């Protein structure tokens, strides 16, 4: 009995000691022969990891004393995980995050500014296509370099246009043209059921909606980032919301969302050849290209009072907790520079101009549209306040859900309420 107890207590203490060891932060180790291991965190998963792995392979071949460990975490908890790791000083040296997370991560002190590194290494930041450095900047300092990006554009299915002899949309078209085209392409059967839709819209996707606001000549927030009131409830924003809602409910040229919770509304009409147009980012394009229902073409989004577009962007930065910022920068300038872009170009739009030009993407009838849209970008609302996601975003989402679901919704009253809610939330957080 005594021996058993002694044995048990040893086992327990051992397991405690072992588990304590296991919780100490991994990596950060220098391997044999002065090899440095850096960790790169990404929110990509599945096939999206292949370009990362390929770039790392190329980098390690050229830098035999550096090992880059890729740490993919896909899903909705990626940012929560990064912040937990940061507060435990166990974050990856290189972290990939998306556009609207940049201000809040930077204000929390998660990244180091890159300006001195860029200067000391003579890194030429003019290699990028226009507008691609801005999302990585906060208060004039560069914290992240671009990975990939997408503006918005209108996909259209030439088969459906040809069948009804409707002319293709052309660059510089207007909201009126959009409505007229969509109406011509909306087809009803004898009992009044719609069998083909004019355009598939991305439901209550707030960030995508910023294009409609900017095109109407409006803005959701003041330039100093302090006021939603007087902006979200302005006549320009009301015009954008009303037009968007009318496409759904008044003119009925857009199918109702299939799943409000899914990114972009969960609709599949365009993919099934049942909608002639679709406004969205470049992400589903490769599926559309190989889809037998679709004869794909792409055109710039229509203009209203202004020609406008918004950018969706992912980038890399160096964690403030990194023990090897110099080594991390070496990899960062590789993965975000020309060598990295040579690999990205086969997976997404490359950020580096010379690569986009030499690979023929800039002049491609489809890819050239996306790249050309970089000349029409307006800054997104999140760039004016680090609190966008928790103040105005839910308020705007509520407005969009309301007007899509309820044909009799009062746009002006909804926007007035939203501006008031967002303003109150902002003032509470700002103090």
């Amino acid at each position, binding site marked *: 009995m005594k021996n058993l*107890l002694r044995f048990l207590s040893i086992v327990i203490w051992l397991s405690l000691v072992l588990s304590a060891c296991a919780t100490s932060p991994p990596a950060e180790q220098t391997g044999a022969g002065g090899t440095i291991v850096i960790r790169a965190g990404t929110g990509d998963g599945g096939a999206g990891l292949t370009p990362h792995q390929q770039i790392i392979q190329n980098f390690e071949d050229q830098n035999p004393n550096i090992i880059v460990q890729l740490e993919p975490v896909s899903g909705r908890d990626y940012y*929560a995980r990064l*912040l937990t790791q940061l507060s435990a000083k166990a974050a990856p040296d290189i972290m990939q995050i998306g556009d609207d997370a940049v201000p*809040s991560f930077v204000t929390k002190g998660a990244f180091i500014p890159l300006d001195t590194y860029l200067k000391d290494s003579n890194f030429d930041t003019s290699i990028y296509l226009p507008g691609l450095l801005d999302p990585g900047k906060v208060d004039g300092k560069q914290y992240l370099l671009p990975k990939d990006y997408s503006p918005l554009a209108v996909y259209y299915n030439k088969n459906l246009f040809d069948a009804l002899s409707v002319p293709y949309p052309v660059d510089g078209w207007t909201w009126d043209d959009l409505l007229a085209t969509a109406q011509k392409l909306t087809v009803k059967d004898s009992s009044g059921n719609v069998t083909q839709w004019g355009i598939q819209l991305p439901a209550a996707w707030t960030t995508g909606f910023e294009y409609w606001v900017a095109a109407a000549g409006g803005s959701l927030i003041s330039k100093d980032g302090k006021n939603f009131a007087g902006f979200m409830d302005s006549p320009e924003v009301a015009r954008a919301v009303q037009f968007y809602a009318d496409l759904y409910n008044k003119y009925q040229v857009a199918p*109702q969302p*299939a799943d*409000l919770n899914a990114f972009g509304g969960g609709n599949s009409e365009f993919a099934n050849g049942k909608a002639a147009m679709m406004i969205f980012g470049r992400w589903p394009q490769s599926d559309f290209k190989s889809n037998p229902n679709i004869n794909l073409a792409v055109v710039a989004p229509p203009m209203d009072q202004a020609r406008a577009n918004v950018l969706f962007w992912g980038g890399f930065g160096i964690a403030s907790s990194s023990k090897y910022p110099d080594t991390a920068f070496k990899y960062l300038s590789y993965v975000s520079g020309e060598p990295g872009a040579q690999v990205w170009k086969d997976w997404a739009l490359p950020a580096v101009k010379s690569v986009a030009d030499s690979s023929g993407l800039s002049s491609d009838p489809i890819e050239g549209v996306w790249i050309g849209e970089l000349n029409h970008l307006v800054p997104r609302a999140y760039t004016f306040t680090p609190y966008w*996601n928790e103040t105005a975003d839910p308020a705007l989402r509520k407005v969009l859900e*309301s007007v899509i*679901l309820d044909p009799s919704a009062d746009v002006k009253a909804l926007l007035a309420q939203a501006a008031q809610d967002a303003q109150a939330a902002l003032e509470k957080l700002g103090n």
Partner: protein
Amino acid sequence: MRSFQRKEALSFYLAISPWLVGFLAFTAGPMLISLFASFTNWDLLAAPVWAGLDNYRDLATDSLFIQSMKVTLTYTAAYVPLDLTGGLLLALLVRPRFKGIGVFRTIFYLPTVFSGVAFVVVWLWMLNPNGGLVNLFLGWFGITGPRWLLDPHYALLSLVMMSFWGWGRSMALYLGGMQTIPDELYEASAIDGAGSVRQFFTITLPLLSPIIFFNLVLSVIATFQSFTSAFVATNGGPLDSTLFLVLYIYRQAFEFFHMGYAAALAWVLFAIVLVLTLLLMRSQKFWVFYLGERSE
């Protein structure tokens, strides 16, 4: 003698030490930390800033907190009675012992062992307004089905419907309870001329009341913690009509990184569940009967 007692106590604590360590490190510790956090403003990265009772005070004016309380209470009020009666009906259905009944018991119980997420995804397809099974079925009778999860008036109801798959759990408990009821009671009452309906209300139901009580408590606690179905199917929408309190806590904590406020919300949830459970415990003496107990 005393040294024997001490030895016994020592070996007792040694024997439960794996649980004890786990409890202290992963339950009691985090609870204490979250209690502390609820009095601070904390974004995970910067050091927590003491805020006193601010977080608790903010609750009163937070329209989303009030909305999430409404949603949670409505869901609890709708789901708990359905779970209690539905499970009981299922148990009565599969109670008779004959060949093959095990198959039915398994079928009804099976959903509870499957992952919640997988179930919600299946329900998403069934409730799809265009071509989903439910609306297809309603269409056969000339009924145009609602847009279910996309309609703020039907979304919460859809989630209540989804949770029917959990009936198997309470069914199993009822079934176990029924098997402990002595057959003599039924035989004696049959001799006295009681029919099966009378038997159900005067024998089965009173003697099952401890199980009903147990299911009630579990069900109330579980519905207050509802999360998965809304997280996967609706993310609280449309128009916050399915914003459960736990989903709101998750959003504050892991999307907005307001850890202090989220901790305060969590403690409010804890207090509500605690009070409700204590009230239910108190109510026992009015309606729960234990076999062998004499009423005065």
